[in-house]
């Protein structure tokens, strides 16, 4: 007998999404392998965030089927966590860093005594060890986004959805966080579904890049990114293959637009 291939982590099967009488996404068919880092990019209005919200269970597909590890999606699940772009709104301003991470553990019903060591580990992992008792308003943008990532990791997700998580950060912080997320995902073998409008970011991070085109949002191209890991902000970005793929995708986005 043939060995069955493992169930895809995320399987989109002819997904269509209509919102307010308008078709936002149409005919999206795509399999994401377990442990894969997949980047979805495209111009604004191409429905990339909507696609992420479908996976999160926040938006229901109007047609087609979506399954996670072979199970159809019924709504939000603790196995899937989301890092939102607007960290300032996604964190609870009245709880300190440790309290924000604790929220995910409280949702899972973990006893308080068990929470403390785990929170410490998670905050240390994102470099916020010494900031456990600071409130979000006292942290920089990069630190707030790290805190949100720590809260997502506290959910111990199988799938991590990231919606333009670094879009509002400065270039330096952004590159730092890109590398941290790559390291975290590799360490935990988490499947990452990363939405961005930045072509270079998509190529730098992804195992594959999915390019969408707008009106209505549809798949334009799926590109394999066979660049060596671990990636390096200088070497990877200067690699001839990186540059060739960048040019290729750039031209494609502009021709068909």
């Amino acid at each position, binding site marked *: 007998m043939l060995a069955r291939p493992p169930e895809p982590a995320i399987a989109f099967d002819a997904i269509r999404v209509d919102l307010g009488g308008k078709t936002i996404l149409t005919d999206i068919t795509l399999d994401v392998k377990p442990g894969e880092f997949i980047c979805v990019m495209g111009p604004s209005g191409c429905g990339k965030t909507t696609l992420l919200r479908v996976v999160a269970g926040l938006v229901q597909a109007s047609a087609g089927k979506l399954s996670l590890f072979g199970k159809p999606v019924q709504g939000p699940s603790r196995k899937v966590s989301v890092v939102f772009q607007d960290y300032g*709104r*996604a964190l*609870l*301003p*009245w709880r300190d860093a440790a309290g924000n991470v604790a*929220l995910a553990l*409280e*949702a899972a019903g973990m006893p308080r005594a068990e929470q403390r060591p785990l929170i410490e580990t998670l905050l240390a992992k994102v470099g916020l060890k010494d900031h456990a008792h600071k409130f979000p*308003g006292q942290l920089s943008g990069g630190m707030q986004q790290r805190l949100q990532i720590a809260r997502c990791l506290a959910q111990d997700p199988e799938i991590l959805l990231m919606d333009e998580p670094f879009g509002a950060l400065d270039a330096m912080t952004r590159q730092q966080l890109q590398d941290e997320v790559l390291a975290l995902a590799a360490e935990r073998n988490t499947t990452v579904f990363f939405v961005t409008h930045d072509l270079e970011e998509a190529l730098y991070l992804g195992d594959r890049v999915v390019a969408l085109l707008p009106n209505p949002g549809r798949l334009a191209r799926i590109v394999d990114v066979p660049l060596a890991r671990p990636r390096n902000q200088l070497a990877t970005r200067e690699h001839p293959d990186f540059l060739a793929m960048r040019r290729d995708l750039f031209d494609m986005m502009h021709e068909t637009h």
Partner: protein
Amino acid sequence: MRLAKAAALPLLLIVGAELWFRGPGAGSESLAAPSAAFAAIVEALGDGTLVTATRQTLTAALGGLAIGASAGLVLGFLIGLSKTAIALSTPSVELFRPIPSVALIPLAMLVFGFGYGFEMSIVAFATFWPCLILAQAAASQIEPRLMEVSRVIGLSSTQRLFKIVLPAAMPRIFVALRLAAGFALVVAVTVEIAANPQGLGYMLMIAQQSLRPELMLGSLIWIGLIGWGVNAGLNALQGRLFRHQQVAGGKP
């Protein structure tokens, strides 16, 4: 330096008024010199009448506020949680809310007679509506992103209420309470001036009727000080309780 600048204008006015009433304005039967008003208020403090009147007014204002605000805040918060409840209640709220609270003086007097019940009922009515409306807004305008976070993270609906909705609404609810506290004092004194024979408002009326403008002006300033004190206290409390939260909304 800042304090000196802030105090410059009031001090100038006081000195000017003092000079006027010692010179051309001496013998006025409707107004009095600041020094006379000050002396009158010290005297009233000494013989206990001011303390009694202050206690009566504050008791009525705070008692009425406790009833009106707690009912308004709880009901408003609950209504704000449901779009259906908002739609069902808004027409009735808009019907009753515009009734001026002091227009209820004759009715409340008939029902309760003179005294605390009478005054508190009017204060409660006056503070109920702003609390209801502001608490409803606080509950219905919670950052949508936080509600999404609570869904994605898997909070139960009870957890969502106590861990997200209530704490998120708290700063605005406190603002409602602060506004209502201001109303409560104004309405209590108004009721005393218009009808209820007790408290600071009544003291003002007696001073006026017995042609003692200095006591009247002194009491007026005293009432102003109390209002300022209540507001400053609540402001400080708000700053302490919600120092990590932006109260007016916007970017944290």
